Structures are given as C-alpha cells and as structure tokens.
C-alpha cells in the first residue's frame, strides 16, 4: 500500500530497479503496440510469432511486452526492439513473417533490419531503404513536430503496469495536491495554466472546476467523458488504452479540487480494450491505496467506476451523458442549471474528457507556467489530432496549439497520398466544419478555428482530396447527426431530417432551385433553436462546406454534376474510344455485364444497366475509363 | 371517525391531500388508494418517487404493496394487534417522541398498560405477520420526519373499527405526528361527500358542524333559527333503524340517494326490514334495487344538474355547479325536501342552494366563513369560522380540538365478530375496484366500464383454489351463514391462503348477501371486511 509520498517514491524506485535489472539481465526488449488499431492490423499474430520464434531459437533472455498505441497508426502493426546500448528500432507494417525475420536478424544477429524500421528506411522509397541508417525517433518527421503531454506515455509504457506509470512520475501530482495544496490552490493552478476543455467547447477547465468547488459541500461527482463519438477521432481511446492511469490520476486531482468522492468514466462500449485496461488500472490503484479512503494518508476519499455507453453519439453531450449514467435514455437536459451546479442525481458534477484529464498531472507536476509557455495566446498547451482520410501518415499527432494546418498535414502527416490535390480538412467531426486549402497556413487554435466557421472539437482531422465530394461529405455528416439526434426537440429531430432529405435529393440529382437557400435557412434556425450542442452544431458541416464550396453545391443542383465523381447519380463511367485497347478486361470484371465490345470495336458501357461500382475503371490497364 | 373525535376531538382527516408528496415515510393501513382513491394513489406514488418510504398494512398484495419497503400482510381483523405491536417496539426501543407525549397527550400509562403485552412476537402471531416486519415497520414509521398515516375502510369496517382508528391515533400521537405539516392521521373518506353529510348533521346525535343535539343551548339555537321546537330524543342510526323495521318499531323510512339493498351488509336482513315497513320513500336518480321496494319514488337530479357543494376528505368545501338540465320532471333534492317541509307547514327558509349555504354558515361555527361568493375565489377547509379566516389545512396545531391534550385510548385485540371455523373455514373480505364505485348505480351505466370489469368475481389463492378444485375463471359457490351466491374464481397471489376477496359492486353474485351484520359498537359501522364463508366449485361449472 502506498500511504505517503515516501511510499510512492520507494515504489517507484523498486520499479526502476526492476526495469534496470530487466535491462541488465536481458539481451533485448521487444514491445508490440497493441492498441485497437494495432490489434486490428494483426499485432496479436505478430506478438505470437515473436514469442514462437524466440522459443524455437531457444532464446530466453528477451522480454516481449505490449504497449499502447504510439500514434503512428499508418505503420501498424508496430514493434519496437530495444537492444541495450543501441538506438531503439521501431518496425512498421510488421507481419508474422517479418517478425520472425526480425528475431533472426536483429535479436539473434544483432543487426537491425533497417529497411523495415520507421526510424530507418521503412518510410522511404524502396530504392533508398537499404541505405538508410537507424535514427532517433525525434528525427522521424512524424514525431519530430510533436510535443507529447497527453500522449506522454502512450506507446512508451506497458499500460497494464502501474509500476511503469510511476516510473514516469505517475501519481506524483496526486501526492503533491493532497499533501501540499488546498483545493483552491489546485483550481488556481489549473486556471493559470490556461487549460481549456479538450472535448469540444474549449471552456476553461479551472473555471469549470471552480463552479463545482463553490457549491456547498456535500455529495459531488466527477465524470470523465470517454464517449468519443466523433467518427474519425480516436485519441481518447488511445490514451485509455495506452495510459489509463493518467486519466485516473487526473480525475482524482479534479475530485480533490471540487470536493467529490465519487467518479465515473463513461466509456463507449465499442472500446473493449480501453474498458478492460481502465478497469485494470482502477483495481491496481485501489490495491495500492491510490483510490479509496485516506489516499496518501489524508482525509481524501475517492472511488471510481466505469460506466458503458450503448451506442448513442448524443451521450457525448454532457447532460445526456449524465442521463445515461443514471440509467435513462440519453436525452440532453436543459441548461441551466449546469452540471457543475446540478448534475448527476441533481448533485454538482464536473465533466471533462479524457484528454483534458490526461493533461492535469503534468500541469501539477511541471507547473502552470511550463504549460502556459506552450501553445498560442488564448489556447495553451497541446492538442491531439487524429489524422485520417486522404493523408499518408494516418495516426495521432499531439501538436502545440498554434501549429499551422500545413505543418500538420505535410510535415507530420506526410501529405496527401498518390499525389492527389489537397481540397480541405474537416475538424470537429459532425459538429465542425471544413477548412479549405487557402487557409492551410492558419495556426490551429480555438479562436482561429472559430473564425473559420469550424471548431476544435475533440480533434478529429479528416483530410479530403480532390476526389472527395463536399456535398456528399456534408450529407454524410448530416446523415450521421440525423441518425444520432435523440429526438427530444423539434428543431434537431425534424430539422436535420428535412435537411438530410434535401441533401439526399441534391446528390441524387433531384435538387431544385431555391434548395440551397432553404438549406441555409434551415441550418441557421436549427443552430439557433436546438436544445443541446448536437442540434446546435449539426448544420455546421453543411453551412461550412456551403461557405467554401458553394459552387460545388450549385453544380449539383443546377448542372446535375459532381466534379469529384462521388455522387453516382451525377456522373457516368465512360470508355474513351480513342484510348480503348479493346482488351476486354473491363467487360470481364463488370459485375452486371453491361460492357460490350470486341477486338474490333471499342468497348461501350450500357449506362442504363451500369451500377457505377467503378470496377471497370480500376481494372482498366490503360486508364481508358473515366468518370464524367 | 368517532374514534378520532374521542382521541383528538375531531373526526376528520387532520392534514391535506397535497402534503403527501413531501412525506418521507407513509403508513398506509386498510386502504387501497390506487383503486379506491386513484388520484390520492398517484400522489402517494409521486411521493415514493421523491424518496418517501412506504409501509403498507393490508391482507392483500395491493399495487402499492409492491412499492412498499415493508408490507405487513396481516389477517383481516387484526389491525389493533398490529398497531399495538408497532407501539410496543417504538416504546421499548425508545423511539417515541417523549417531549410531545409529555406535553401534548394524556393517558400514556394506560396505553402502556395494554400495549406492554403486545410484543412484536405476540402481535405477529395474532396477525400472521413476521415479528421482524412489525419491528421494521415501527422503526421506519418512528424515523419519519413527515410521516402521515392514511387509512380507510380496511380499518373502520370492522366490529372493532373505532378501536382500530383510536389505535392509529395512539401510534401517531406516540411519535408526535399530529398537528404538524406533512403528518397526521388521515382517514380517506369512502365517498365523495361522506365528510359533508356528517358535517351537515346527517347523523343522529349532531346538527351541522358536530353540534350536539343533546346540548340544550345548541338545540335552542337551531330551534330559534328554524322557528320550530326540536326533539331531544336521541336518534337512531341507520343500522338501528333497519333493526327497528324488522321488529316493527320503525314504520316509515325516507331514503335519499342510497341503495342499502346493495351497499349494506346482510342483504337478506335489509330486504326483510324494508319489506316490513309501512311506508318507504326513495329519492334517487335511478330505480335502484332499493327504490324497487319503495311506495313512492321521487326523481332527483344528479351532480351535473344542480348547484351545491361537496366537502372532500381533507375538509375542503368545493362547488358543484349545474351544467345541464335534469331529465324529465326530476328536481333538485333540496327542492323536493323544501316542498315536503312546506307541506308539513314548516317554512324551509331557503329558495336556493346558495341560501342553504348562507343558513349553514349562520348556524354552524365551523362553516361561518363560507359562502358561495367566497367559494368562487377559494375553496377553504373547515374549520373556517369567519370570512377573514383562511381555513384550516392542518388540524390540531399546537392545541387539539379536544382541548390542550390529545387522549391515548388503547385497546386490546378484539377478534372479529365472525371468525372462520370448521363449517365456514375461509375469511372473506370485500372492497372496491378501480373501475367502479360502490353500487354500480352510476358506473354501471357506462358500458365501457362494464366491458372492462362488469361481473362479480372472487379472488382466491392458488393453494386454496387447488384444494377446492377451482380453476381460473371457473364458477364458484360461496356461502356464509346468511346466504349463498355464485361467482367467478380469480386465482391469484394477491390474497394469502385462507383469505378471499370480493368486490361488492355487482348485483350478480352480490357480496353483501354474504357479509355479516356485525357492527362496531361505537360507530355502528358494519363489519364488511370480515366474515366466514365456505367455497365450492359450482355445479353449473361443468
């Protein structure tokens, strides 16, 4: 049991000693990234292959362990090989075969397989791979531009080990606030740091805590919103999977600050690994006395429980989330009263998201001044973005506020694949908006994004290229929010349905003059009149794409054309007769046999039968088939 | 009613209906409000949802029993033993409100004298209830800061009814629960204007406002007000009058808006009485079973066809207003009565319902501040002696109607007048259904209600049903010492073994053919809730 700061230090030292011992007595350590994305990419098979290969070769002095996601999802499965005394090597796109080879060459042979290493030739063009040297991680562009606070331990420690968390100064901040600071001082420190909620609204965390703190003493709650609903954002999952104790510690500090003794983590049921690791972390913390009664020998008592979501995006809205924890339909409630005054079961409740809580311990540990030195004027610290869509380095990037979109997309993200042209980036998911190419050099922070008509949101960053149809994209997001509308208030329930209906007609080529004006009017009204954040932001993707890509909308409505070639009703596959070499491959792959032709006459697509699957275009070896 | 008059000084609900939603502990005994007083029932449920803990004492698993923290499923007719057992726990565990008992009550020693014998174990044995449940209920009730007791006919309709009511009063006084907001002793009146009928002096010994006929001064006041000499002879209750009819002493009865042929116990006895009369007048809105026996039937108007007031269970006087004309030649009851008075040579003194209320106010101190003009603005609760008096939502605040102190009037357990024996081994209790109201004079005229619940039935426990070879929905013969009926079996866990329940609404298989003529010696209330019967599969049920 850890009862004092001294206990914690001793615990940490024992862990450090254990790790030193491990390093001293082993030939190598192998870490396999086993977050959801890693596992989905086949990390388990890789892990098994490594173990098997080591066994086959009778190698016993190698430690194989799992870590969370290091964030470089595009390279999954990832395995890190750490030979004492030499540069760590991070292998990407590992498969069982490569894994066995790595054991053979790197572990047994002592020579890194540079061409597979992310910090070697693994990311280079094939002809350059062999020459590449193994470099420090920080020289890899993907990592070089990042500042990792919330993700500080992700992919670095074994998320299932409390010991390794303490080695990275885990629970030192909790010890500090409990033994050296008053709740008011904690709140003051968080306020001074300038930390703003990382879940969407960007409200000052310290100020929020202060509201709850100022409520009369009595039952209060602290809740972690881990209902990461933005499709395309997965930083919270990654933190919970890679560093669950950072959330536990952040929540405990928050609980102390506001005077709560009970906390809930409301987590998506779709994140089974996160739930499992979080539950494990909670039980470890309880076992060591870091949760429960008399934490660090003080009067402070704090208990934590995980509650599962059940597939409702709206439960990311804080009042709906509370309703869900209470066992109700996840319908938002009117604010005020705000949860900080009347939340769970009518008691003062603070709700912050995962990333926000993950920032707390470092702020306490290193001071608000340090945190405040990172970022831009009104947006301090860092923000984790989930890079996805048409971008090479899909993954998690934690960047200081104020970094430009261009740096994120090109320096960290490696640009748009296949030489496609960047068209825009969607931030804030279904609640946010898009940023077109002309604003690539805008420094990213809360205020600048707001000016562009979008939001920071939870940090989803979807990159779109020339072949993304903005109308269809907006329709996609609205389809999502319409489906996820709880149905409580008419503006959102009916309004999103009516808007979606219009967009569906537009992408089907049935748009009418006046539709765009109606869409704008509806969007504006839904935003104004809806009960909760879901409805108040639901029209954003439509309004924002209309703002920057209105001509695309007009083309859809007026010309019945989709320039990106996405809206199937608005384009045809067409075989250019001059280019057709009459090989007949297209006719073979066509699932509905609508392509006819022979060696003498160019092939032709029967447009009435074509289902626009695009198989022919993909199959044509001569690029003779186009969309038009 | 009589019970509370003795212990507290006024036989009415001490508190107001709306207070229930703020209660923290609610003790419900002998009352099934979700069926008999549905809008009260919903408010008890609202209270429960807001955190109130519910204690239910009822032989049946009534709907609210399922929501109760403690359900005391006692044998019918053992309320007093149960209450004594609870008081034993409260006293021996030091849970009583000593300060209140010392300063605002008298007779505690007498109470203890009797209650001391009723250990929860002994009470449990009499009631057929686990002693631990009695203790739990006692502790819970005593812990309530706002702990009202609601009771109804399940307490009063016993031969020991008045003692049962007084035992409830004892319990409430013991915990200091009389005279404060959200607490009290609250009889849920059986019918819309029971309270009003009694308030208005439709009881033998009292004029309006519970002014005693036996008091010469009061008699003089009424005599003067009415301009006639008034009799000082004590009057007879309806039960006594019926007995008098059977013996021949009572020669004429005038019945207004009642149907004793269905509503009174021991129907055969009632019929004999009414047939034996020299002259029977029935004034009603339908040709009831009773009216069919009358010499003269007078058509009256119903509530929708006249002006007037009802006094609800919480003593609130509320207006009844004329919405439609009565059918045919029907007349308002008061107008018929006024005409008869005139023909007797007595000036009725009023020409409208409003004028009657003015007269009531004049002669009845507790109604002194009530008039139709005022009722347009606010519906006050009596006592309301003057026009600037706000009415009385809570009785006995600081001081009891009875005087400075309330009285403990303990009673030992009194067995029911008729208990099961070898010949009639089962205990029958009667009561109401949600969809009907007393005799189906009114509800029975709504075909939809009759479609939902239109026929007599009897609830029987599966064990008893099996014993007697009764099937769900099968026909069953039920017999008591007074008569025999046939009805339909409803096999259900709602009743415990050995106990049967029948609604008394229906003329087919009428429950009151079976019920006993036992009455409470003080209030003369019949023992509808307990009689001994036997059951058998009916031969018609092949």
């Amino acid at each position, binding site marked *: 049991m850890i009862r004092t700061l001294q206990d914690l230090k001793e615990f940490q030292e024992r862990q450090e000693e254990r790790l030193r011992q491990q390093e001293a007595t082993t030939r190598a350590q192998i870490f396999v990234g086993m977050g*959801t*994305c890693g*596992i*989905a*990419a086949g990390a388990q098979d890789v892990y098994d292959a490594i173990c098997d290969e080591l066994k086959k070769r009778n190698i016993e002095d190698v430690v194989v362990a799992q870590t969370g996601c290091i964030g470089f*999802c*595009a390279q*999954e499965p990832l395995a890190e090989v750490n030979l004492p005394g030499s540069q760590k090597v991070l292998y990407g796109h590992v498969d069982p075969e490569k894994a066995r080879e790595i054991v053979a060459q790197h572990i047994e042979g002592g020579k890194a397989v540079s061409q597979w290493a992310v910090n070697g030739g693994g990311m280079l063009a094939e002809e350059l791979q062999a020459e590449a040297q193994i470099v420090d991680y920080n020289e890899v562009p993907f990592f070089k531009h990042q500042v990792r606070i919330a993700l500080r331990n992700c992919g670095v420690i074994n998320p299932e080990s409390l010991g390794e968390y303490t080695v990275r100064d885990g629970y030192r901040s909790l010890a500090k606030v409990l033994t050296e600071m008053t709740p008011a001082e904690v709140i003051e420190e968080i306020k001074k740091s300038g930390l703003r909620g990382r879940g969407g609204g960007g409200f000052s965390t310290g100020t929020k805590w202060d509201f709850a703190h100022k409520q009369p003493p009595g039952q209060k709650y602290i809740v972690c919103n881990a209902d*990461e*609903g*933005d*499709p*395309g*954002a*997965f930083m919270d*999952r*990654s933190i919970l999977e890679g560093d669950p104790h950072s959330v536990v510690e952040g929540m405990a500090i928050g609980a102390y600050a506001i005077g709560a003794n009970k906390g809930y983590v409301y987590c998506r*049921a*779709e*994140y*089974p690994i996160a739930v499992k690791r979080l539950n494990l972390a909670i039980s470890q913390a309880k076992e060591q006395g870091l949760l429960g009664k008399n934490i660090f020998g003080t009067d402070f008592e704090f208990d934590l429980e995980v*509650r*599962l*979501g*059940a*597939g*409702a*995006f709206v439960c990311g809205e804080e009042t709906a989330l509370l309703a*869900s*924890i*209470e*066992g*109700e*339909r*996840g*319908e938002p409630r009117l604010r005020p009263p705000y949860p900080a005054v009347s939340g769970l*079961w009518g008691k003062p409740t603070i709700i912050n998201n995962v990333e926000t809580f993950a920032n707390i311990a470092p702020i306490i540990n290193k001071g608000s001044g340090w945190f405040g030195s990172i970022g831009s004027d009104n947006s301090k610290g860092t923000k984790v973005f*989930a890079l*996805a*869509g*048409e971008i090479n380095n*899909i*993954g998690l990037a934690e960047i200081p506020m104020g970094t430009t979109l261009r740096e994120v997309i090109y320096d960290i993200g490696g640009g748009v694949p296949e030489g496609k042209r960047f068209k825009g980036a*969607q931030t804030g*998911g279904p609640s946010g908006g898009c940023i077109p190419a002309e604003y690539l050099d805008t420094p990213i922070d809360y205020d600048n994004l707001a000016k562009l008509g979008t939001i920071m949101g939870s940090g*989803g960053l*979807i990159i*779109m290229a020339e072949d*993304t149809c903005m109308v269809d*994209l907006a329709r*996609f*997001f609205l389809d999502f929010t319409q489906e996820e509308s*709880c149905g409580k208030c008419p503006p959102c329930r009916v309004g999103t349905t009516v808007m979606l209906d219009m967009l569906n007609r537009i992408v089907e080529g049935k748009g009418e003059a006046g539709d765009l004006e109606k869409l704008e009017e509806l969007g504006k009204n839904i935003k104004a009149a809806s009960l909760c954040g879901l409805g108040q932001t639901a029209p954003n993707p439509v309004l924002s794409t209309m703002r920057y890509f209105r001509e695309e909308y007009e083309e859809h409505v007026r010309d019945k054309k989709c320039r990106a070639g996405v809206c199937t009703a608005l384009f045809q596959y067409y075989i250019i007769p001059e280019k057709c070499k009459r090989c007949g491959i297209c006719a073979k792959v066509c699932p509905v046999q609508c392509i006819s032709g022979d060696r003498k006459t160019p092939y032709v697509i029967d447009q009435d039968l074509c289902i626009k*699957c*695009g*198989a022919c275009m993909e199959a044509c070896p001569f690029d003779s088939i186009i969309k038009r | 009613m009589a019970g509370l008059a003795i212990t507290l000084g006024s036989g009415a609900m001490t508190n107001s209906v709306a207070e229930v939603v703020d209660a923290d502990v609610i003790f419900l005994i002998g009352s099934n409000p979700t069926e008999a007083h549905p809008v009260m029932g919903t408010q008890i449920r609202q209270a429960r949802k807001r955190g109130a803990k519910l204690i239910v004492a009822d032989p049946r698993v009534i709907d609210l029993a399922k929501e109760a923290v403690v359900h005391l499923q006692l044998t019918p007719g053992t309320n007093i033993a149960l209450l004594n057992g609870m008081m034993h726990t409260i006293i021996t565990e030091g849970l009583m409100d000593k300060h209140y008992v010392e300063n605002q009550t008298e007779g505690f020693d007498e109470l203890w004298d009797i209650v001391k014998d009723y250990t929860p174990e002994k009470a449990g044995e009499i009631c057929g209830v686990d002693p631990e449940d009695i203790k739990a209920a006692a502790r819970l009730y005593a812990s309530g800061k706002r702990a009202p007791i609601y009771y109804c006919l399940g307490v009063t309709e016993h031969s020991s009814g008045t003692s049962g009511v007084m035992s409830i009063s004892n319990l409430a006084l013991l915990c200091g629960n009389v005279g404060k907001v959200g607490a009290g002793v609250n009889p849920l009146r059986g019918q819309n204007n029971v309270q009003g009928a009694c308030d208005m002096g439709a009881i033998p010994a009292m004029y309006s406002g519970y002014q005693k006929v036996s008091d010469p001064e009061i008699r003089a006041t009424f005599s003067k007000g009415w301009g006639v000499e008034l009799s000082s002879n004590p009057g007879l209750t309806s039960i006594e009058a019926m007995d008098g009819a059977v013996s021949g002493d009572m020669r004429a009865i005038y019945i207004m808006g009642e149907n004793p042929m269905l509503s009174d116990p021991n129907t055969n006895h009632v019929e004999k009485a009414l047939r034996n009369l020299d002259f029977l007048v029935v004034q009603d809105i339908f040709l009831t079973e009773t009216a069919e026996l009358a010499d003269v039937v007078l058509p009256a108007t119903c509530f929708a066809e006249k002006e007037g007031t009802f006094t609800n269970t919480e003593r609130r006087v509320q207006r009844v207003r004329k919405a439609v004309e009565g059918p045919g030649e029907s007349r308002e009851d008061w107008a018929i009565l006024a005409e008869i008075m005139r023909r007797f040579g007595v000036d009725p003194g009023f020409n409208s319902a409003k004028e009657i209320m003015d007269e009531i106010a004049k002669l009845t101190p507790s109604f002194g501040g009530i008039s139709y003009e005022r009722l347009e603005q606010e519906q006050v609760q009596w006592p309301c002696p003057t026009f600037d008096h706000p009415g009385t939502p809570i009785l006995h605040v600081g001081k009891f109607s009875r005087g400075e102190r309330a009285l403990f009037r303990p009673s030992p357990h009194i067995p029911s007048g008729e208990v099961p024996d070898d010949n009639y081994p089962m205990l029958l209790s009667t009561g109401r259904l949600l969809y009907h109201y007393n005799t189906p004079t009114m509800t029975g005229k709504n075909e939809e209600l009759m479609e939902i619940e239109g026929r007599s039935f009897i609830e029987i426990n599966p064990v008893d049903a099996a014993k007697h070879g009764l099937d769900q929905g099968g026909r069953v013969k039920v017999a008591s010492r007074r008569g025999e009926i046939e009805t339909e079996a409803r096999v259900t866990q709602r009743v415990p073994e050995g106990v049967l329940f029948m609604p008394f609404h229906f003329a087919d298989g009428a429950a009151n053919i079976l019920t006993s003529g036992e009455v409470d010696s003080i209030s003369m209330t019949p023992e509808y809730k307990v009689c001994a019967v036997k059951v058998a599969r009916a031969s018609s049920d092949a």
Partner: protein
Amino acid sequence: MGKCNCKTAREELAEVIEAYRGQESALIEVLHKAQEIMGYLPRDVQEAVAEGLHVPLNKVYGVVSFYHHFTVEPKGKYQIAVCNGTACYVKGAPAVISGLEEELGIKAGETTKDGKFSLAAVRCLGACSLAPVMTINQKAYGLMNAEKAVEIIKQYE
C-alpha cells in the same frame, strides 16, 4: 447441448440481476450484461431486468430502444460490422456495405434468414488507419473493398 447452454445462460442472467437488485441506475449496465449473456434482449429478458431492478418495464423498453447497441432481435452467428466512420466513409465504406448487402441479400441492420450473418454499419471503430474497416465477431479486417469483403465472408460460410 444447445438447451443445456441456454439454461446456464438463464442462470447467469438471474445472477446478474440478483447482484443489482433494486439498483435503478444500473439499468444500462445490466442490459449490457444481459445482452452479452443472451445475445439479445427479448421481452422476457427485459421483464426480468425490470422486475429485478425495480424499474418499470416501459422505461426498460424505452432505454433499450434508444441505444443502438441493444437489440431485441437475435443476431446472426457471424456479426459483420462495417465501420462507417468518416475516415472509412471517405475511403469507400459505402461500397463495402452495398457489396455485402448484395452478397448476403439483406440490408444493413438485418440478419440473414438462416441466422448465419448479421450486417451492421457501425460508428467509428477507431482504426482509421486501416480504413475501410470491417469486423466479423470482433476480428478486424482492414483496407477493405467490396470484393475483398465478400471474399472474407465466404470463408465463414
């Protein structure tokens, strides 16, 4: 064999309900567990939960019908989920879904008549680097297109 399993599931369900007896706010927790045990939430399961937790049945049903995770229909032996998160959408998830719909002869959200496959379009699975992603009974397949997806489900037949 099947019957025997079923009985154990019933017992397990009863144990879960007993563990949460009277805890109204545990409704969603218990429904999760019930669905894990029973595979879906038919009327009798909802009634048992309602009775055990002292929650009115209409509320249980209202909650079940609100959350898309809960289902009142039995699911197929193989549950196919195609991620329809933004990244997957942009990279072609709709084509994967329609390809599977065509192959299986059902719409997303339905189960094949033989009870073998159910198909669902689900919210972001958080594996955006592998977009489009499909999972079959939680096993993930990345970088899908319609043909690949159809090939994969053929392995399950």
